């Protein structure tokens, strides 16, 4: 299935990294296992957003909503119903995807900044409902102590589960990006008018992209519950949406794995600088300013550029 669309070297590197991370838990302190797992969850969220922002050119400003909807759905299913666990785990992404379909259906009627503004408004509406509806969602207290099956009973087991789901999701996202759907999406990013002129229904294509992206955001939401066993309204707050948007820019939004790097940097900063000062976002701000001036293509974009001078030369010579 992947034949021809991945470079052998990057594939080997990814597999090696995956095995290394899989073997890690017994050898590192519990705290680091937790931070790594949190990075994986956030990475998947940022990757799902980047499908829209980096590859689709859509200003999905309030993406955290779908993460929150996924997380709340699974938390509610597991605390308030007697459904089997796997039903809850499936319901999370599906509910997120449904929310994406409804909100997206309105948003794709607008373009660029107007798309973003409407997306923020509709998303904030969902946040307000979750925040206020004490009886059902627990309001600002959220829901705590979500029961997990024995298979996910310890932190290390949750770590393995999260890592494996992340790896599978990234493979799927990669396939999707390299599919006809993915290349058409990138064409829409570059030039929506021309796409319409070659027979592409731009709105429908964008809506499908939103549905796919919100599905993966829902998976990230489920993984968050697996890790934390609790949910709270901050998961749907616009501040988190802004953070993941920054992760995409930071990592490199035109690259495939850039958002993973962006998520790792942001979560690490929040954790390790956050120990010393609650104003860790100040450091993030400075980094962002430097980034805009020196690495406009993001950290990953920059790395790829210095790693591939030869390929570029060859392309230049042919011209």
């Amino acid at each position, binding site marked *: 299935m992947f034949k021809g669309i991945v470079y052998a070297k990057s594939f080997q590197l990814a597999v090696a990294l995956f095995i290394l991370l899989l073997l890690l838990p017994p050898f590192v302190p519990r705290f680091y296992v937790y931070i790594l797992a949190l990075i994986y969850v956030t990475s998947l969220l940022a990757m799902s957003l980047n499908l829209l922002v980096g590859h689709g050119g859509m200003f999905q400003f309030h993406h955290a909503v779908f993460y929150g909807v996924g997380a709340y759905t699974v938390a509610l299913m597991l605390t308030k119903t007697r459904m089997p666990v796997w039903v809850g785990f499936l319901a999370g992404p599906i509910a997120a995807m449904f929310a994406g379909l409804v909100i997206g259906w309105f948003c794709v009627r607008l373009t660029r900044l107007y798309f973003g503004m409407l997306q923020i408004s509709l998303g904030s509406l969902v946040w307000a409902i979750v925040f206020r509806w004490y009886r059902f969602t627990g309001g600002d207290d959220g829901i705590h102590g979500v029961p997990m099956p024995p298979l996910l009973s310890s932190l290390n087991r949750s770590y393995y589960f999260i890592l494996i789901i992340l790896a599978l999701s990234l493979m799927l996202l990669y396939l999707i990006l390299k599919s006809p759907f993915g290349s058409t999406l990138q064409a829409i990013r570059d*030039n929506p008018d021309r796409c319409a002129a070659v027979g592409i229904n731009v709105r429908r294509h964008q809506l499908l992209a939103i549905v796919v992206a919100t599905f993966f955001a829902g998976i990230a939401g489920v993984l968050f519950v697996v890790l934390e066993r609790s949910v709270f309204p901050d998961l749907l707050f616009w501040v988190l949406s802004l953070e993941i948007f920054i992760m995409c820019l930071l990592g490199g939004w035109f690259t495939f794995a850039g958002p993973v790097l962006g998520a790792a940097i942001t979560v690490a900063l929040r954790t390790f600088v956050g120990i010393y000062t609650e104003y860790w976002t100040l450091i993030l701000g400075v980094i962002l300013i430097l980034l805009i001036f020196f690495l406009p293509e993001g950290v990953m974009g920059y790395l790829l550029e210095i790693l591939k001078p030869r390929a570029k030369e060859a392309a230049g010579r*042919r011209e």
Partner: protein
Amino acid sequence: MLHVEGVVKSFDDFKAVNGANLVVGRGEIVAVIGPNGAGKTTLFNLITGQLQRDQGKILFKGEDISALPPYEICHRGIARSFQIVNIFPRLTVFENVQVAVLSQQKRSHDLFSPAQSIAVEKTQSILESIGLAGKGKNIAGSLSHGDQKILEIAIALGNEPELLILDEPTAGMSPEETAATMELIQCLARTRGLTILFCEHDMEIVFSISQSIMVMHQGRTLIQEKPEAVRQNKEVQEAYLGGE
């Protein structure tokens, strides 16, 4: 094949197209000429659905297409290139054309098969027929202006149109490039059985390759005739020589 009858389009108070009539028969090469601002590009935008007409009829193969969105019109068999280069700058040359081919084959929504093994032959054959085969892997935004204009046409061919509309295909090209491009267009019309509607400022080209010429002036159609008849028409001479 294409009938445009009494089409009107205004922007606020300005009537950009004010009574345009055009007939294009199957297999013909038809040119639209007129001074700058005569409404040629607006007329093309109306035919391909980028703009909606205020009045009048646009019939393609007997069907009224004037209220359809651009992607529907494209699927009925009309493809176009743009006057100002309008490509996908971050994609490779190959991918630029492939997007159109995928759309033509209705595979744009395919989520899980690798795109690089779909529609490859078709895309490659288009690139070869138009002389860009060697540059398939280049990023489209890095091509020279002349090559980008050729790529414009290649993207349009990806849709396998019956009617190809070219809006100033040689704008900004050197005289040599212009000659080569016009040669190419004629060759495409012959080998692919395309019907071509185009506009162009170089009168020598227009009169040498088109079977029928429509003259526009201030949004209005003056006449549509064979080249010799157009050359001798008084109104046309006035529009071009006097008054402007």
